[in-house]
């Protein structure tokens, strides 16, 4: 069969179209898709890389933020005492009163520390807390007439001296030591009793940003070393002779009670 020229051209044209289509669909498009996929992957990867890079760069900022926060926390930590030592606090406050002239403490009490905590958003208490103790003093003034052991034999100690001590306590560390209450009680005997309740606060922080300074005031024991040698039980020769009672049942006694062993005044 012979093909006319037109038919030949049409067949060749068709063949060309088929070849072009084949090229497009079988070679070009897959390669183009592959390139697009790779480009998308690269773009995603670069986005991830950029955000990672931002993370890396942000470490510098975060380091600075962390350092600043630690400094701020350290500044907070030192606003209150790092721990409570009732004996040191009581001794120091007693000294303040004594220095002001109120040397006779008639009552001193210090209750167990009170703990205050912050509740975390999840309802549990924070490990950081604040503790405080209340030290209650009752002090006796003097009448200025009765010998009180002072160099002058008798000096008047009253409101002026008490308020001097209170002013001093207020100024020691206004954030750490609060005077919670003060009072005066008249005896109608020429002298007065004075009372003061003083709160002392400490941060109870398990992980501190600043080390505790053991030489810090109201932490360090500042009195002279004590001489040891105390005993358990009042020995007989320390009991006032007038208070010894021969009729008191002594389960260990084998005979009549005598006070021969007592040195000094004998018993009744």
């Amino acid at each position, binding site marked *: 069969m012979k093909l006319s*020229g037109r038919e*030949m*051209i049409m067949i*060749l*044209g068709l063949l*060309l179209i088929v070849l*072009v289509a084949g*090229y497009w669909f079988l070679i*070009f498009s897959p*390669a*183009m898709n*592959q*390139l697009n996929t*790779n*480009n998308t*992957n*690269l773009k995603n*990867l*670069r986005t*991830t*890389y950029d*955000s*990672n890079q*931002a*993370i*890396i760069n*942000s470490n510098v*900022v975060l*380091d600075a*933020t*962390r350092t*600043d*926060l630690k400094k*701020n*926390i350290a500044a*907070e930590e030192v606003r*209150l005492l790092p721990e409570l030592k009732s004996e040191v606090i009581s001794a120091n406050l007693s000294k303040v009163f004594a220095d002001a002239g109120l040397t006779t403490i008639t009552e001193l009490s210090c209750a167990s520390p009170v703990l*205050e905590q*912050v509740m975390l*958003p999840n309802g549990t208490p*924070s490990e*950081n807390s*604040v503790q405080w103790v209340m030290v209650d003093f009752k002090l006796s003034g003097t009448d200025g007439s009765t010998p009180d052991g002072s160099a002058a034999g008798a000096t008047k100690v009253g*409101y002026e001296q008490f*308020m001097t001590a*209170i*002013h001093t306590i*207020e100024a020691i560390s206004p*954030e750490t030591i*609060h*005077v*919670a*209450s*003060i*009072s*005066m009680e*008249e005896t109608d005997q020429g002298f007065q009793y004075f009372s003061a309740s003083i*709160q002392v606060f400490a*941060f109870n*922080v398990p992980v501190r940003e600043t080390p505790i300074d053991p030489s810090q005031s109201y932490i360090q024991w500042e009195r002279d070393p004590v001489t040891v040698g105390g005993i358990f039980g009042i020995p007989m020769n320390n009991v006032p002779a007038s208070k010894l009672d021969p009729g008191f049942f002594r389960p260990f006694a084998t005979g009549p009670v005598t006070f021969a062993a007592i040195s000094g005044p004998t018993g009744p």
Partner: protein
Amino acid sequence: MLNTKKMELSKKDMNFFSEFSSSSGQVSSYMSLILIVFISLLILGSALYLVLILQSAAVRSDINKVTNEMSNQNFTDAAAKYNQNTADINSLNQKYFDMTSLFARVSNMSKVDSQYMDTIQKNLPVDVVITDFKYEKGAIEIKGLCDSSYSPLDFIERLDSSKMFTNVDISDITKIDITGMDLLPAEAAAMKPYSFTLVGSLESSYPVTLTRFVDAAQPVPLSALDSQNLAVGSSYTLTGISSYTASDGSAYTLSNVIINQISLDATKLAALQQGGSYDIRVTSSIEIKLLYKLSASNGGVQ
């Protein structure tokens, strides 16, 4: 006749062949053209394909390069450090908040201000003897003796003038009954005939605390607690709170305001979110909680 027919036939044959040869020439020229087009397309297609392959290879190379960079030790270390830093900062933020909250509680506890006692002493009329006093929890109770029933009133007037007390009340002014005291006449004459009890209320103030939290199911503190003591009746203004930049540079926008456990109504909140202000009258302790959400245009790392 026969010759004439042969002539005509031979002419026809000649025409036929000439037509045939002319068509054959056209076909060959088309064929050449098609061949050229085909070869051109082949070259173009191959070139395009080559370009695609090269581009793909270049992109794959970039991918490998970026992947390698991301998986190197430095980046792993940096990522670990970032996680550690973030955890540390969260923990430190909580600790800072705890400590400022605790300190605010300490600061807000009632305490003696000896200036009040100094004021009392300075304003004491000459015939008055204070026998007892008690100063605690923002009030001072004073008991004393005096020569005249007017003396405590003079005393109160002077204390009022000092402007340090919001109020000074007279609990009692009593003429002392000395009949049962067995006093000598001279002693009775020297004795102050009146006793009195006054109670002075000090200028009241209340703590106003302000905290910032991330608005989430479990709010995370964004900053330290701000606390101040303000006198009763004074005004506290909330302003400039529509946005907040955390210490790490992250930007937050206000999402809610809770005052003493009650959310601010939508109109007032909207005003604050648009940079407005809101006044609060201090009549009791005020606890303000500002809740923030991370801004869409956050400059920090999310």
